[in-house]
């Protein structure tokens, strides 16, 4: 992708930026003005409408949430080293796994890639100065923080113990914990998700640079477009669902309570109607990140570009039709089970197509083994296992056995942690030079990626075996024959924890001591690599015009169709 911009290459090798504006000639000689140093002070951050600064606000917030969620997981894994519940009370244990789920799903995974990397990169990738609605973008961060504050309040005030799934009638009539405050937190945060999705969709439609046709959009943008559709269409459903739970709890309306003529299974339909597509909110952006990393680190046009782009949309659409596969043994009719199982197998196909295309992209490439590529390779491997074990769960006769066991826990952690978080970390490393303008220590980056991969597998692979043995999820006490596998899992979790701490340390370190980054450290293609690192507030000093296909490495006439 190339741009037509004026001026000579600057000190960092950026092509074509015009000479500095005459009013800041002195500072620019020492330090170029960019979005980070353009202004200082708390106000300049809390009132910013710059999508890049908002991305960093989100980065800070979700890092804190990830740490909190991880802390809960640590206590859970420590408790499960021994079969009896001897470290915390059962009430506490139940609150721990509930809050781990609530924090990780609603306050980390759902906003993670879209709100941080998407916010930062999507406008740049489409050649825009900012998102379509910069102030709504800031609003969405504040809404997220208010929602998080409600949930934090609920946790400090005593926590919530319903499981992140809030199944009725337990959540409406039996739980004595802070269900309403937590639910309100999720309700409020949902609006932040909706606003982000809205902003992305409008930006992609209306603000693409001249020449940036739909068929030239980076795959990261395609996957965020698909994600935004789910955010807009799905999130209102979870909002009304948690609202109904709150109303039923407060006013005894009888929507779900069988004693009043309600239907407890109705709640599960509503809940999964959002929460299954939400899985794709978490994984689709990661898929976009992997597409970018794979092309950037192998310097090759992504194999089967249009198939990857279309598969994102296919996943977004089919993803809305499979919620009933969470309910095969929940009292749903056999025929409904058959339909949902069938469609679940359909939604596996576009994911498989992506995996094959990423792998094929490396063929005859120039593959770098730097940290982002390690994460991408880890993602492809773990996502393959996560996706294939999804076939076990979509298989009706088999799901009856493994439903609500550790097999499910292992499966969704392979997708969410092995997939979404590997994608998130890979993306952070890949774009860190662009975001921070500094270089992280490559050696430490590789070490951390390998530690995370090993720790992850040791933590979650034993859980597949545990699940098939029949170990139910959310068990505080467990039969002694499961102990060996639980100890392995806890040991893996301690390795994983070290792996997650390392990037936190060296990213922070690099902000101060890291070498300055060049505009295009990977020599990759894409509009974001044609502007300085870190970018100026206005991203592009001159409107870019796109003249080439996406990921145009090498001369087009050399292109080979196999």
């Amino acid at each position, binding site marked *: 992708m190339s741009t037509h911009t004026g001026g000579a290459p600057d000190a960092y090798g950026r092509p074509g930026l015009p000479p500095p504006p005459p009013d800041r000639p002195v500072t620019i000689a020492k330090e170029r003005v960019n979005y980070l140093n353009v202004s200082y002070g708390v106000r300049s951050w809390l009132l910013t409408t710059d999508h890049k600064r908002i991305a960093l606000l989100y980065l800070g917030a979700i890092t804190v949430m990830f740490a909190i969620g991880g802390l809960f997981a640590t206590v859970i894994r420590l408790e499960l080293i021994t079969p009896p519940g001897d470290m915390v009370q059962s009430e506490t244990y*139940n609150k721990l796994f509930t809050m781990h789920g609530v924090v990780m799903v609603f306050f980390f995974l759902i906003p993670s890639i879209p709100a941080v990397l998407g916010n930062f990169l999507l406008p740049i990738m489409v050649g825009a100065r900012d998102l379509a609605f910069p102030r709504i973008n800031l609003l969405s961060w504040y809404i997220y923080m208010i929602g998080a504050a409600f949930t934090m309040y609920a946790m400090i005030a005593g926590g919530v113990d319903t499981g992140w799934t809030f199944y009725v009638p337990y959540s409406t009539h039996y739980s004595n914990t802070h269900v309403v405050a937590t639910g309100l937190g999720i309700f409020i945060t949902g609006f932040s998700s909706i606003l982000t999705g809205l902003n992305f969709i409008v930006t992609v439609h209306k603000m693409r640079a001249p020449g940036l046709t739909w068929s030239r959009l980076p795959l990261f943008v395609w996957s965020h477009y698909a994600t935004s559709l789910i955010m807009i269409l799905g999130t209102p459903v979870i909002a009304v669902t948690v609202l109904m739970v709150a109303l039923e709890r407060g006013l005894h309306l009888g929507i779900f309570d069988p004693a009043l003529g309600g239907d407890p299974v109705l709640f599960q339909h509503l809940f999964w109607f959002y929460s299954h597509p939400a899985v794709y909110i978490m994984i689709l952006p990661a898929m976009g990140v992997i597409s970018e990393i794979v092309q950037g680190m192998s310097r090759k046009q992504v194999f089967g570009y249009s198939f990857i782009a279309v598969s994102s949309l296919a996943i977004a659409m089919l993803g809305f039709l499979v919620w009933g596969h969470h309910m095969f043994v*929940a009292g749903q009719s056999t025929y409904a089970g*058959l339909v949902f199982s069938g469609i679940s197998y359909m939604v596996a196909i576009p994911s498989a197509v992506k995996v094959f295309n990423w792998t094929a992209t490396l063929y005859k490439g120039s593959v770098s083994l730097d940290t982002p590529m390690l994460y991408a390779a880890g993602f492809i491997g773990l996502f393959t296992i996560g996706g294939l074990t999804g076939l076990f769960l979509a298989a009706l006769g*088999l799901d009856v056995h493994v439903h609500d066991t550790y097999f499910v826990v292992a499966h969704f952690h392979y997708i969410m942690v092995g997939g979404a978080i590997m994608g998130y970390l890979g993306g952070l490393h890949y774009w860190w030079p662009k975001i921070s303008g500094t270089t992280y220590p490559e050696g430490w980056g590789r070490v951390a990626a390998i530690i995370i991969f090993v720790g992850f597998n040791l933590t979650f692979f034993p859980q597949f075996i545990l699940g098939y043995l029949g170990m139910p999820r959310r068990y505080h006490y467990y039969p002694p024959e499961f102990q060996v596998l639980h100890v392995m899992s806890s040991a893996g979790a301690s390795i994983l924890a070290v792996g997650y701490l390392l990037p936190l340390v060296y990213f922070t370190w690099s902000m101060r001591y890291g070498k300055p980054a060049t505009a295009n450290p990977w020599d990759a293609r894409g509009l974001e690599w044609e502007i300085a690192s870190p970018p100026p507030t206005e991203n592009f000093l001159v409107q870019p015009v796109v003249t080439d296909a996406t990921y145009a490495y090498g001369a087009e006439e050399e292109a080979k169709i196999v």
Partner: protein
Amino acid sequence: MFSGFPLFPPQASTVAARVDALYFFLIAISTFFSILIATLLVVFVVRYRRRRDEDLPRPIHGSLALELTWTVIPLIIALGTFVWSADVFVSSRRVPPGAMQVYVVGKRWMWKTQHMTGQREINQLHVPIGVPVKLTMTSEDVIHSFYIPAFRTKQDVIPGRYTTIWFQATQTGTFHLFCAEYCGTKHSQMIGSIEVMEPSAFQSWLAGGATGSPAQEGEKLFQSLACITCHRADAQGRGPRLEGLFGRTVHLSGGQTIVADADYIRESILNPTAKVVEGYQPIMPTFQGLVSEEGIMQLIAYIQSLQAPGAEVVAPPGAGGIKLLPAGAPGAAASPAAGGAASPAPRTP
């Protein structure tokens, strides 16, 4: 079996072997594709690693043939797995005729089971080997899930309705019973055991400790709750006759029909006006709060035991064939069991 380091659960029911076959098939598929992808990744990364920093490979845009290949082959595998797993599922749902009945009530945090011969158990269930056993289950409070890993079977137990599950044990011994749906503080202690016994041992176990059978208990309840004053066997009551009702198609006022199963009878006891039999007035009061879940199951067992005396022919009720009291308020009835709903119209002369 409650110790050691197992990697595979005991296989103790007729369904277990079929589920395991599916499991091993999917493991084979998963292993194949995981190794394929991992091998390709490693080979490509090593073979095409960047040797010089300025390397710029020739672009390759894609291949329609390859795209079709890796769309169609997974699709065929997926559809095949779907059909296979659906077959296992559907047959695991179809209860064989003549299955032994057991009632199960889930309650935080225990399982209460009752055999048709009257034995009650808590957190335990004794069953004979080689006999299909059907469980009819409900919950007194939140959603639970009845899970026997060794039988590869599980079903949520839901308040306000009945769910069923069946199995046929193929191995004697003691097996885990877990609650698999999170139900609150002591969820992980809502566990028990399934004792599979030789038929002779089961018979002698059955001989001890029986109270009245559910049907007998149900008959007592039927009298003490004064159901009998309206639901009279001689078809002269204000409520429909219950003899021969169970399993029959019932015509409701409003023209619908419904098969009189356990759920229908339960609803008719707790919410009598929801479905009123054609030709009857909605005068029956609710028994919500007057009878426990186990009591309702016993009433159902009793109603199920009532055979219609020589009345297989089902005739639609004549327009004026029902003699009802004037539509008096339920309060006018002498007993709390003023009849009305809950059963088909009398079909015999």
